[in-house]
Each structure stands twice: as C-alpha cells, then as structure tokens.
C-alpha cells in the first residue's frame, strides 16, 4: 500500500515541510492533474476534500450499513479508474455524488437487496449517542438534544422516500453550493425541465410524511 495507515487529516494538514505543496485548500484542477501524474499527496488532499460528500450521499441513499460502505469504496475505485476522463474537475463534487448514488442503486439491485425498513435502524445510532452522552443537564446540552432529535426525525422521514426521490434530492441539495440543474441533468440523465418539478414533488412528499408534521407546523407550513 502506498499510504501509511496512521495518516490523519490533522497530521496531513500540518505536513508543510513535505515537498508536495498540495492540501485541501488546493483547487480541484491542480489536485486532479497532480494525482494523474502520480502525486500521492494530491490524491490524499482530494480524498480529504471530498470524502464527506461521498459519505453523505451514500447515507442519504440507504441505511444498509454494508451497502453504504461498499458503495463508498466503489465510488473511490471509480474515481481512480476515471480520473483521466474528468474534464471539468470543479464539478467533481457533483460527479462523485451521482456516482455514489448510482453505486448504491447498482449494489442494491445486483444483490437483490431491499431497502431496510426504516423504523429499525437510522434513528438508533442517534438515540444511542444521546443515551451515552454526559448527563449534565445545562442549556447547551438540552439544545443539542433537541437538535439531535430534529436530525433523527428528518432522517426517518427522508428514509421513507422512494429511491428516485432520494437520488434527486441527494444530487440537488447535497452539494454546497447546490449542483446547478444543467449539471444535475447531465449527471442524472434526466431532462433539465423535469428537475424543478421533481425536486418540488419530492420535497412535498417529504413534507407530507407523518414524521415531519410537527416540524412543518413549527416552520409555518
């Protein structure tokens, strides 16, 4: 293996004495170019810069732990495989998001797996972490508790959406700034004119889930 197993983000960011000048602050174009030339530091920076986008995408697509791990891994193998074909490196976040959602769908289909019923999984890790958190009941703790509960509710609701809505919303809302419709249209192979209405329809579905009703009430819906 090329990279030492004890590499950490902080160790890497401090590693300014290394002759490779690449960091997560470097532009995508430079990182892709240098990675293609074999610069392992540039690849490390690409991974650090984009791993959260990929992880978030697979988490939004499925709560099947094995599938999301395999899809995450597959997405990076695809990027390595296709690196030489990336013509617009600035669009990598959108490309990776779409690749990740595709890999989830492909793995679910190939393995004949059904999406795991939502009631039995996603919220558990949230509540487990709440239960194991320290018990000092100051205001900040309470506020964090509420924030965690809201996150859990939104996830539960989102996980009830069909695969198509999950994919559309993942690609359209995940990136910051959001993926432009023109780009999303290319990536999803959907007509550009269908994206706005699809986004609207999927957000409405989300709003109308039973789990979201109190949230909608609080937000003036």
């Amino acid at each position, binding site marked *: 293996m*090329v990279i030492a197993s004890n590499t950490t983000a902080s160790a890497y960011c401090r590693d300014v004495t290394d002759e490779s000048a690449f960091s997560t602050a470097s532009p995508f174009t430079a990182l892709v170019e240098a990675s293609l030339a074999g610069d392992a530091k540039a690849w*490390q920076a690409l991974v650090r810069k984009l791993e*959260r986008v990929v992880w978030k995408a697979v988490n939004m697509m499925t709560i099947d732990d094995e599938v999301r791990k395999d899809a995450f*891994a597959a997405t990076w193998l695809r990027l390595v495989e296709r690196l030489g074909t990336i013509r617009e490196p600035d669009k990598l976040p959108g490309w990776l998001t779409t690749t990740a959602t595709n890999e989830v769908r492909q793995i679910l289909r*190939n393995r004949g797996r059904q999406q795991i019923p939502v009631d039995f999984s996603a919220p558990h890790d949230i509540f487990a972490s709440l239960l194991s958190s320290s018990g000092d009941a100051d205001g900040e703790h309470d506020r964090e508790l509420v924030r965690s509960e809201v996150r859990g509710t939104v996830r539960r609701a989102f996980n009830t959406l069909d695969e198509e809505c999950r994919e559309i919303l993942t690609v359209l809302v*995940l990136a910051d700034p959001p993926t432009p419709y023109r780009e999303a249209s290319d990536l999803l192979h959907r007509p550009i004119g269908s994206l706005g209405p699809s986004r609207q329809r999927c957000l409405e579905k989300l709003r109308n889930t039973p789990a979201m009703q109190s949230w909608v009430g609080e937000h*003036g819906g």
Partner: protein
Amino acid sequence: MSTVDEPGASPSDRLNDALVSAVNDAFETDPIPRDLTQFALDAFAWRVIDEELAAITYDSATTELVGIRGTASQRHSFRFEGRGVAVSVSLSGISVVVSVEPAGRYSCRIESPSSVTDTVSDDEGQFVVDHRPLPVRVVVETPAGRLVSPWIIG
C-alpha cells in the same frame, strides 16, 4: 438555516428552503469510519496508467433480472472489449472463469483490493481461478498493450 428572502418568495418556497437545510444538516454529522477513509486513500494504488480501460459490452447485472430470487451473488457474467480482443468473465461462488478471443496464450491478472493473481491462459484463451470477493477486475496483456476492465462492484 438559509431562507429565501426575496419579497416574491412564497411561504412554500421558504418552507422548502428550510427543509433542504434540515436535510443537509441531518446527514452532515455522520462520522466516516476510519477504514473507509483508508480505503479511499489506498485506492490510489489502483490507478490505470498506460493501460486501456475496456468498454463493458455485456453485464448480466444490468441486462438480466438477477437477484429476484436471491441468486445474484451466485453468478455474474460480463464481457469487455478493447485492444483487438474480447474477454468474457463468469463469476460464481466457486470460481472465476475467463475466456479471451481470439484464442491464444495471454498473460492475465485478476485484481481485487485484497488480492492479485497472475496467470496465463491456455491455447484456447481460457483460464479458471478460485472465487474471489467483489470488487474485482481483469487485466489482459494483448499484443497491442494492456487492457483493463472496469471494476465489477455489485
């Protein structure tokens, strides 16, 4: 939380914006397992240099109704082409069967992130190796250069 501030924005637009923010926030905090970050870093070792990435011309996973009865993991076949050869691969729970056309002896390699196996096909262009877990890809040395299949993931 971002909201639409323009006077023309409808309450529904504002609600959707708040919803998008809430979704983003809800999925923002998942810690990434360390072994997955490490896999992504190590994936760099698998980059394709001076090889031709083959085009998949057939994949049973995308053209057949596999998996409906739980048989998907038992058999998966695909075919790829490039550099003047066509390669058929059949993956099962027992073995990997590879057939290269036109027939002949080719140096080949079966790669997966956990193992690499080098072998040579027989005069018919065929060889068999033990089963290995996905993802997997096949590399064939052709007279025109090295041909590598895309990763077979599912």
